[in-house]
């Protein structure tokens, strides 16, 4: 057989049948559900009188519009103040109960943002096809899964048939060689990649992230990178299996033990691209060129190193791009040519499926430790990605570091990443945010989002404006060891 990429291998393994018209039936191993994109799918099943194909491939949890406020959470689903949100969360509970789908309910250990929950429970394992009605499903590709977001019609299709009708994508490899420098985190690496290839650069492709930077990166760091493949236009992002992948999986709740574990590991080790495999396109970056990144505009590709100036429209020769730039600066309330570090922030959000895992919490806590939130900053939300992350962070004393710094320690959920809940920006407010999208209105109507790493966001909280965490901290950020 000719040399294959990791994506080719995952595709071949899950191909049920290929139709004459070029469409294929792809088998889905794991389907993750949440409250926002599933109710219409369950309704569709009911109307057609269909049942789920099988149950043990599905796992559900509420995350998008639940409150992250402790006191509101304590009163349970019936206590959710917004009636429409309450109905939606209740619908997920009812649908899962009715069809027999395993759900980690709102206040149950195991609950969390879908893309934090799946890997940490071992519900998603290497080599699986993973889908969810959420575009950040690419996150699971950090475990060498073929994982991508789907729409609600496809949620219903997967529930009913355990398959997707789809077409093979092209292969793209993004290599980043070298060593990440002082103050540089996985978030900076992926923002730099998006800045290079653009927000549609990966359209139609499955991206494999390769090179020494990803080999050296922890699994949680790889999740941050794969998570934002979609912001580069690719619905799939992934990293090949190595010892870190296997170590990460071992001992997790749904991961097998004994003989089956050894059988699984032997298979997982094959989940790498063949050395002579061909990619349809290749992109290369060098770690030396990557310093902490910040978005200044209204698309993730509108990103720059923290030391840079906000771009000037007059320097943009392309007419369409200049129009977009002018519109973005107007929305963001910024002037071309101003230093990025001169942008003041009103609120800070540390959380989301991109950056809410234990390593992200440690990264932020290292900056927050012994410091105080600037008086001009109205609110700093620290939102762990899951009940398990929350418990771990509390065991490490991170919550106390945040609280002592004047930050709010919340319950797990999507929170201010998309503002479907009470956590949102006011009109015109600037936010240092560890989330994934800086679209107009994403974090609240008129809100102005600046995407950055947890370390950079924590530093902005303390300084009151965007600041280069390298000068601020003066030490290497260590994510994988406790403070």
């Amino acid at each position, binding site marked *: 057989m000719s040399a294959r990429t990791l994506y080719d291998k995952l595709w071949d393994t899950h191909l049920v049948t290929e139709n004459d018209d070029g469409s294929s039936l792809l088998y889905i191993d794991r389907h993750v559900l949440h409250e926002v994109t599933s109710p219409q799918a369950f309704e569709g099943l009911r109307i057609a009188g269909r049942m789920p194909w099988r149950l*043990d491939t599905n796992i559900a949890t509420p995350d998008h519009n639940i409150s992250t406020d402790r006191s509101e959470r304590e009163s349970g689903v019936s206590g959710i103040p917004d009636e429409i949100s309450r109905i939606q969360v209740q*619908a997920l509970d009812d649908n899962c109960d009715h069809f027999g789908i395993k759900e980690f309910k709102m206040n149950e250990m195991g609950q969390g943002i879908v893309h934090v929950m799946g890997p940490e429970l071992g519900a998603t394992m290497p080599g699986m096809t993973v889908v969810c009605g959420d575009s950040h499903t690419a996150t699971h590709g950090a475990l060498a899964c073929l994982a991508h*977001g789907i729409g609600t*019609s496809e949620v219903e299709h997967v529930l*009913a*048939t355990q398959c997707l009708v789809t077409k093979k994508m092209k292969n793209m490899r993004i290599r980043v060689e070298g060593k990440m420098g002082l103050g540089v985190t996985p978030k900076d690496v992926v923002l730099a990649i998006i800045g290079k290839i653009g927000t*549609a650069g990966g359209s139609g492709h499955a991206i494999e992230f390769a090179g020494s930077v990803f080999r050296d990166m922890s699994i949680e760091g790889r999740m941050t990178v794969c998570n934002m493949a979609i912001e580069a236009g690719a619905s799939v992002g992934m990293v090949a299996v190595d010892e870190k992948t296997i170590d990460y999986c071992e001992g997790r709740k749904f991961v097998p033990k004994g003989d089956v574990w050894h059988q699984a590991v032997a298979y997982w080790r094959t989940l790498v691209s063949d050395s002579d495999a061909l990619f349809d396109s290749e992109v290369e970056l060098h770690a030396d060129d990557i310093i902490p990144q910040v978005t200044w505009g209204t698309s993730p590709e509108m990103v720059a190193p923290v030391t840079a100036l906000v771009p000037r429209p007059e320097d943009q020769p392309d007419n369409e791009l200049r129009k*977009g730039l002018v519109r973005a600066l107007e929305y963001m309330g910024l002037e071309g040519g101003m230093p990025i570090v001169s942008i003041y922030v009103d609120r800070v959000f540390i959380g989301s499926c991109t950056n809410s895992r234990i390593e992200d919490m440690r990264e932020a806590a290292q900056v927050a430790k012994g410091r105080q939130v600037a008086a001009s900053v109205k609110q700093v939300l620290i939102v762990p990605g899951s009940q398990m992350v929350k418990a771990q962070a509390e065991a490490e004393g991170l919550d106390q570091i945040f609280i002592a710094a004047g930050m709010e320690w919340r319950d797990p959920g999507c929170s201010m990443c998309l503002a479907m809940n009470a956590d949102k920006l006011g009109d015109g407010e600037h936010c240092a945010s560890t989330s994934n*999208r800086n679209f107009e*209105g994403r974090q609240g109507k008129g809100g102005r989002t600046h995407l950055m790493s947890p370390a950079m966001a924590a530093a902005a909280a303390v300084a009151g404006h965007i600041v280069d965490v390298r000068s601020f901290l003066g030490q290497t950020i260590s994510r994988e060891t406790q403070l």
Partner: protein
Amino acid sequence: MKSFTQHRGLVGPMDRANVDTDMIIPKQFLKSIKRTGFGPNLFDELRYLDHGEPGQDCSSRPLNPDFSLNQERYQGASILLTRKNFGCGSSREHAPWALEDYGFNAVIAPSYADIFYNNCFKNGVLPVILLEREVGILFSELEASEGYQLDIDLVSQTVSSDSGQIFNFSLDQFRKQCLLNGLDEIGLTLMQTEKIKQYEIEREKSHPWVYGAIK
């Protein structure tokens, strides 16, 4: 599913690139557990001057006069003409639901984000891909003539204007057939039940850890 064969309709412009699905239908409207009723909130933050919430009567809300689709000449538009990478961002199917509910039967753009493109076909909304140059010509024609209409024919895969411009577009044959015939994709897949079952039996043998743990 709703079918699409051919359509002649008024064209409405959305002259910007990278229109994301948050812009098409903002997050607060995603709390609905229904598939319908999103039309009044299509492009909500651009279209209205106030902040919209689900369940609100939109007929009395202040319209943004600067928003293209609010202009008198584009009322009743059923074809949306826009720029590249339309529908990027979130996978929300509420985006095509909102376009369809508003009255759009088709979108014309140089490119789309993958998930949005896929979602359109499930809802009888045809996402037409033309070259950037061709889209540019249509924008110029649209600007020059009030009541500008286009003909879209899925069978011949063409977009034609009254001035005589005819542009071809390509699309996947499976999607074309599903859309032409309004086929129920789940029903089609379930016709392959035996193949899926056979695959699953093999997979349970070769990859047993995939199954049984979650219960």
